[in-house]
């Protein structure tokens, strides 16, 4: 094995997730995000759950590391609801 620069997908592939299908624990309102100019979420979400697609902010809750950064940093109030995933869902850390 050797050390190399890992991309976003490779980093998340290291982790174990159990996905609560169809039941996002964070709700992001696209209409609000469209008017947001700061878009902090794109830079600070450590899992890159927020991405720009055709100039639109897309949020994907799968891969969320449950850190809370987006909730704390969102200046435009587009993160309308932030909760932990339901019991037994989400990320499982084994050696952090």
């Amino acid at each position: 094995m050797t050390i190399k620069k890992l991309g976003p997908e490779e980093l998340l592939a290291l982790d174990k997730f159990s996905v609560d299908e169809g039941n996002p624990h964070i709700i992001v309102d696209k209409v609000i995000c469209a008017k947001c100019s700061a878009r902090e979420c794109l830079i600070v979400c450590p899992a890159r759950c927020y991405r720009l697609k055709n100039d639109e902010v897309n949020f994907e809750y799968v891969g969320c590391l449950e850190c809370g950064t987006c909730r704390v940093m969102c200046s435009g109030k587009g993160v309308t609801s932030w909760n932990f995933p339901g019991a037994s869902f989400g990320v499982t850390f084994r050696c952090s």
Partner: protein
Amino acid sequence: MADDKFDAIVVGAGLAGSACAYTLAKAGKNVLLVERGNTAGSKNVSGGRLYTYALELLEPDLYKRAPLQRKIVREQVMLLNERGATTIDYFNPDFGENIPQSYSVIRAVLDEWFAAEVEAQGGMVASGILVDGLIEENGKIVGILTGGEEMRADVVVAADGVNSLLGQKAGLFPDVKSHAVGVGVKETIELPDNLINARFGVTAEEGAARVAIGCTEGISGGAFLYTNKGSISLGIVFNPEQAAKQQRHIQDIFQDFKMHPAIQALIEGGTSVEYGAHLVPEIGYQGIPKQLHREGFLVVGDAAQFGINTGLIIRGMDLAIVSGLAAARAIIASPSTAEMGALYMKQLEELLLVANQRAYQNFHGIFEISRIFGGYPKLANDAMQFMFTVDGKTPTPMVKGLLRAVKKHATFGQMIADGWKAYRSL
């Protein structure tokens, strides 16, 4: 029903929650410790190094039972520029003597052990349960809600970490502010022990702790590296407000740091096995909410925003344990719920948590000196490069060469202003 009622429900089996529940159970209290992760520690990310005094306060020799990694005997500070590194290495074998001062830890392992210790003392541990609300009656908190189910207790201890949704639900404080937290990202890299020992100059039981600046592209923040048994914990903590003002993703800045020649040389041959992220309380005393209790409800650990970051030292786990102990002592000593809050605050004073927080209360002013995160580490490396370059050409006089390195990164006016700011913060 009175029989169903616990003396205390502790929410969150991190270090704060387990320290609290452990002490309560040991004193014969009927305590329930609730954790949303399937096992304690499975949601937690730390650096991490634990200062052992905290476990010792909880119970003498408890640390000997704990699954700790390596006792830290080497303290290293790295100043980085693009490809160079100036490293200060302080070796002190006495840090590992008697009661060692600190150990590297892995939270999934440590927290699971601690929760088992709570059970061994007769406490009840319920993992895989998310607490989603509080029960309030006659102005008191009298229990928790989970998936529509009620569980009651004389007191609920919120040990639910930096995001403390429960503290907010109890109406004690608003959500944490972005200027008061750092966002930490971390990769765990498996590396054979013989390589760790050789690269860091330690024996099998000993370890090194390293902090680094100059690797955050000027963003307020710094990196850490801890040696564990068979692995390295590598990460960066960023000021999220400053990070958001520039264009590069923090993940990319972190990966570039990992590939810095001086870091890569330490982890080469290793295997990346986990990637985690977590918020960390950053501004110390000034970030602690004014109100940490109401009747039937106490807030401990990261939920109370306890934390000390001096740039060289990151503390949170020890303060979590001390505050958990303080809450437990208050609960044990209180004749009724009415006195618990005041007693808890008194215990925080007596256990010197408040004094520790106060001693560093202006410290985060240092992190407003932007050159610390770029200019000065670069300056150090340029100065080193100048001093150690031998190429047969006519040498530049020492003073002139050093001044040239200095001037490239800061004016004397800036250095004096920064020095003054640093002095005022210390």
